[in-house]
């Protein structure tokens, strides 16, 4: 029974992420520091367009979500890792991997992966929010109450935005 609720709440969490990320609220200011701005700096080539990659990994993401729902979390993690090799800066993939680790009760990993996801989610407050929710719960599970409180503050900060 508790497992059922855990899964249910996690799928709700995932839904929340999807809804937020497709409908972003006001974006956090992002500083791009690629050009030192000195007169000697060279022109910066733009990184390769990654337009098609979300489509490429979408199938894998779906596959992983299904497996995780069926309780095959190890396989789901392998598939997410594969997707991350193709698109390493996709915060959703990192977040989902954090979720899988949470269902596996590997809370320290869940926390670290959600923090990692945040580094790529500067333009996506929706995912940041979902990450901090997960971080708060993972820290609580590890007995880190003050850390969990810290994470909940971040959640509130993002909700106020």
């Amino acid at each position, binding site marked *: 029974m508790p497992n059922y609720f855990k899964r249910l709440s996690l799928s709700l969490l995932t839904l929340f992420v999807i809804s937020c990320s497709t409908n972003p609220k006001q974006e956090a*200011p*992002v500083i791009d520091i690629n050009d*030192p701005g*000195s007169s*000697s700096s060279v*022109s*910066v080539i733009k990184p390769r367009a990654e337009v098609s990659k979300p489509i490429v990994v979408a199938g894998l993401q779906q596959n992983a979500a299904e497996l995780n729902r069926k309780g095959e979390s190890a396989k789901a993690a392998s598939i997410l890792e594969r997707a991350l090799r193709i698109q390493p800066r996709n915060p959703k993939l990192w977040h989902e991997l954090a979720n899988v680790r949470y269902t596996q009760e590997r809370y320290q*990993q869940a926390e670290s992966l959600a923090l990692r996801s945040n580094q790529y989610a500067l333009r996506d407050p929706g995912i940041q929010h979902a990450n901090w929710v997960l971080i708060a719960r993972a820290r609580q599970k590890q007995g880190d109450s003050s850390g969990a409180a810290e994470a909940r503050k971040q959640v509130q900060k993002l909700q106020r935005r």
Partner: protein
Amino acid sequence: MAGKKKTQRRRKKPVRSRRKQPRKKRKIWRYILLPAVLVFIAYAIYLDVSIRDRFEGNRWEIPARVYASPLELYPGLALQKSALLAELKRLNYRRVNKPNEPGTYRVQGAAVTLISRAFAFWDGEEASRQLRIQFDQSGVQRIEQLVTRESISLARLDPAHIASIYPRHNEDRILVQLKEVPVLMQQALIAVEDRKFKRHPGIDVSAIARALYSNIKAGKTVQGGSTLTQQLVKNYFLTSERTLSRKINEAMMAVLLELHYDKDDILESYLNEVYLGQDGQRSIHGFALASQFYFGRKLKHLKTEQIALLVGMVKGPSYFDPRKHPKRATRRRNAVLDVMHERGLLDKNERNRFKKSGLNVNSAQKAALTRYPAFLDLVKRQLRRDYRDEDLSSAGLRIFTTLRPDIQLKTEQALSGKLKALERGYRLTAGRLQGAVLVTDINSAEVVAVVGDRKPRSSGFNRALDAVRPIGSLVKPAVYLAALKTQQYSLASMLNDDFLRVEQAHEDKDWTPKNYDKEYHGQVPLFQALAHSYNVATVRLGMDVGLSAVIDMLYDLGVRRPINKFPSMLLGTLALSPLEVAQMYQTLAASGFYSPLRSIRAVLDINAEPLNRYPLSVSQVVDAEDSLLINYGMHLVTKFGTASQLSSLLPQGLNAAGKTGTTDKLRDSWFAGYTQDYLSVVWLGHDDDKPTRFTGSSGAMQVWASLFNTIDAQPLQLESDDAIEMTWIDIQSGNRTDGHCQNAIQLPFRRGTAPQQHSGCSHNIIDWFKKVF
């Protein structure tokens, strides 16, 4: 009465004696013979079990298959057609006019049509597919299903099979089946070593008698009477002991072995097991491995005279070593050719012709069995580190590694090309300079290429893993990061680079660190001290922050070796291997997230079930802001610091971050650097510690730049949220200044920590005149 008694006695006597004798016999039987027979039977059973165990264990061992990283194909992938064709070649796909079965392909202009092979990966099955891959200038443009023309978003090819290994053994092995061994080799072996092999029961009594006679006549051992079966047994329990009991044991085991197995089984095991030489720590067992080791070719490609040499070497692999004693080896080979002629295996002309040929032994003594010995060395070590021994001993494992053969090849080329150029340019003895390179995929912490020798196929000393050398200035980012972490310092904090005297508790003399240019630079902003690798400012900073804080930072970044708490540590007296340096820089490159570098993705057992591994740990050891600041600082190293030459060496706009390292008397030349996706660490030096005559930037960095010109690297991108603010700083005073000043540079700061003091444009009158006129 007396007569009666007499007769009774007389009568009784024979009866008594008749009765007594069987009782005596029975006693002997009961107390001596029976136990002896029982002990003998028990002993025979023991021998039988142990020899069968040994025989079966070695005979049925199936090697683990090792695979490289598979190629993922999807639209938008920056992969040129030529790179796909190179991969197909590695996978042994055949080029045909009309692809009709898995493993075939066709090239039509800018498109490649192929039928992929089905493959069971650790995360699922990949079915065979008919694909048409369309290329444009930037790479893969579109992938479609050949018949339906339906667009495909992702396809994975089967991975390249890079090696077969025996994870439990330290040594390389190649096991062959009897049918793979040339018949001539089998016949020659029997002719020379054991003529009655096909007929005897494990021992050859007449051969033993003959040998005994010769040996007594000569007064020493000149001839052995061992059959192939006895030799095989001896090989299983290799000892130099030559006692009688040993011989009897061998003989008994030989007979027992023959009772259980037929001649072909025994011959096959013999061919795989016999000791044929030594390569440093590595024993050469079996004809197939010996064939690779001495001739660099497969058994089936051996020439007759080479077969004769190997067969001859069985008698004494070190005594007849063709590399050390070519004359002796030639005499022995010719003796074998004579025997082969005698037995009708060769005619006279053939024999004479073969006798005249040279030994043709491969000169590269350490030729490895695989194309990637340094990488496989890492795989073997990580297997033992991450998996349980008992799991590794099961047969038929499949090991999926992180090797990228394309990047590996480019790394090998970059190293060997630059080493030659450096030897020419600095007039060093050709062929002596050595190097090691590791490349990692930053996001996954996967090791994608390892080179441990200038001859990448050499299986000797693996410098990438085992050359533990002082790291010099590569240690500095840890010092600066420890300072930034205190939040007492920012990139613009002013550091003192004037004369410094450090008292040393463990030595009489004080230490006065010097800069590489032998000058002192007064007050310098922190980012400048890092960019130009100023020693004195770094030592003062490290002492101020505290040696313990710096050492803790090194441990956080992933160093796992005891570090001495001496001030000289701040300038990199700490010695690490290139792999350990890669681990440390991996954490920096991955924005402060520590993950152990790995070379194995998964290991599947014979039922395609993944083996349990010790869990991996990922943890954030540096916070996002500090990580951004140090990465920015290291980016500036490549912009105007010790690595500024990179601007001209790399494709325009390929932003990078890195650090050069040079040790005392130019003994070690290091560079560790990364872009968005790949990190590489390069070490160059001499094995005997002789100076190289070049620095980190004129040596190792040249290899790094050559590599990053050929791999598809993405420029380093640093992003942050509002916890960081960008401020214009005067590059000399470290004060806030205006963006239009010539000496202004924009630097990141933790919000609220940027300097408050404002300076106008420094020496801007002259600059203004320069600009105007």
